[in-house]
C-alpha cells in the first residue's frame, strides 16, 4: 500500500500535467489541409466489384487548424469525388471560413450524402483539450 501511493501520485501528476499542457498550449498545425486522394486503379477495382470507400461519410474540420478540404483524383478516369467531378490528375481545394454542418450530395456513398462538420477554433483550454483528445483517438 505504501509503495502504491507514490506511484498513484506520480501517475495522477503526469495525467494532470498532460491535461494542462493539452489545454494551455496553443494549437499549431503544419498544414491546414485535410487531403483525400483517389488512388490510381480505383475505377478498375470498383468495376471488379470491390466497393472502395475513400471518403468517410462525415469529415470533421476545425477552423484555423485544419479547415481546408483537398480532394485529388490520381486515377486514370474522371471520378465523382465528394461534391463534384474531378478529371484525372485534377484536385479540388475548398477552404471553410464558417463553423457549420455542410451537406453535400455524394454519389460515392450509399446514402448519397456527405457531411462536412466544421467546428470552431478551439480557443479555450477545455476546447483545446477536447480537440487534442479527439485527434489522439483519431490517430489510434
Amino acid at each position, binding site marked *: 500500500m505504501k509503495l502504491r501511493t507514490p506511484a498513484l501520485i506520480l501517475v495522477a501528476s503526469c495525467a494532470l500535467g498532460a491535461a494542462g499542457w493539452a489545454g494551455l498550449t496553443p494549437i499549431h498545425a503544419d498544414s491546414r489541409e485535410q487531403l483525400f486522394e483517389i488512388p490510381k486503379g480505383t475505377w478498375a477495382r470498383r468495376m471488379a466489384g470491390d466497393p472502395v470507400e475513400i471518403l468517410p461519410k462525415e469529415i470533421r474540420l476545425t477552423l484555423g487548424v485544419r479547415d481546408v*478540404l483537398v480532394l485529388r483524383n490520381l486515377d486514370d478516369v474522371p471520378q*465523382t469525388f465528394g*461534391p*463534384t*467531378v*474531378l*478529371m484525372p*490528375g*485534377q*484536385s*479540388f*481545394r*475548398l*477552404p471553410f*471560413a*464558417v463553423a*457549420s454542418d*455542410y451537406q*453535400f*450530395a455524394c*454519389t460515392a456513398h450509399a446514402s*448519397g450524402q456527405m457531411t462536412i462538420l466544421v467546428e470552431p477554433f478551439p480557443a479555450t483550454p477545455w476546447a483545446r483539450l477536447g480537440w487534442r483528445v479527439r485527434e489522439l483517438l483519431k490517430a489510434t
Partner: protein
Amino acid sequence: MKALGLSLLFLAGAASASQDAALKAGVFDPPRTAPDFSLRGSDGAELRLSHYRGKVVILAFGFTSCTEVCPTTLATLAAAHEKLGAQRDRVQVVYVTVDPERDDPARMRKYLGGFDPTFVGGTGTDEQLAAVRRDFGITATRKTSGDSYSFSHSSYTYLIDRAGLLRALMPYGQTPDDYVHDLRILLEP
C-alpha cells in the same frame, strides 16, 4: 516565338494560380474547360454556355418550385450582382432546371425575373438535362409527396471564368459579399 508563347502561358498559369489562392470558393487545379451545352433559354433563344465567353458565368442548378435552396441562392446572386455595380454587365447568371416537366422557358423567365431580369434560365428534354448534370457532377433526386413532387439537388454553384474555364465551386450559404469578392478576382485582367 515558341519561347514567347510558353512564357505567356506560364504567366497566365501563374496569375490564375495566385487568383485561385485568394478565392473564397473551392478551386479546381488545373481548371478544365466547362462542358458546353445547348438548351432552350428562358429568353426564347438557344442557351449555350460558350455564348458567354468574355463574361464570368455563375452556373446554378435547381427548379422554380423549390422552396428552400433556390430562392436563397438566387436572392444571394441577385444581391451580389447588384453590388458589382459597373461590373455587373460582365457577369452572367445561368440557372439550369432539373424539372423540365414544369419549368418551361416562360415559367423560368417569370421566376428568374423576380430576382434579377438579367438572369437566364435553361431547360430542355430529360435526356439533355441529365447529360448536363452528368458533365457537371450535379445530382437531382425526385421526391414524390402525395400529388406533388420536388427535388433534392446539388446546392452549390460553379464559377466559370471569361475563358470558359471551370474555375471554382461556391458552396451553398455563402454571402453576396463572398460572391462579389470572388467575382472581382475573376474579372481581373
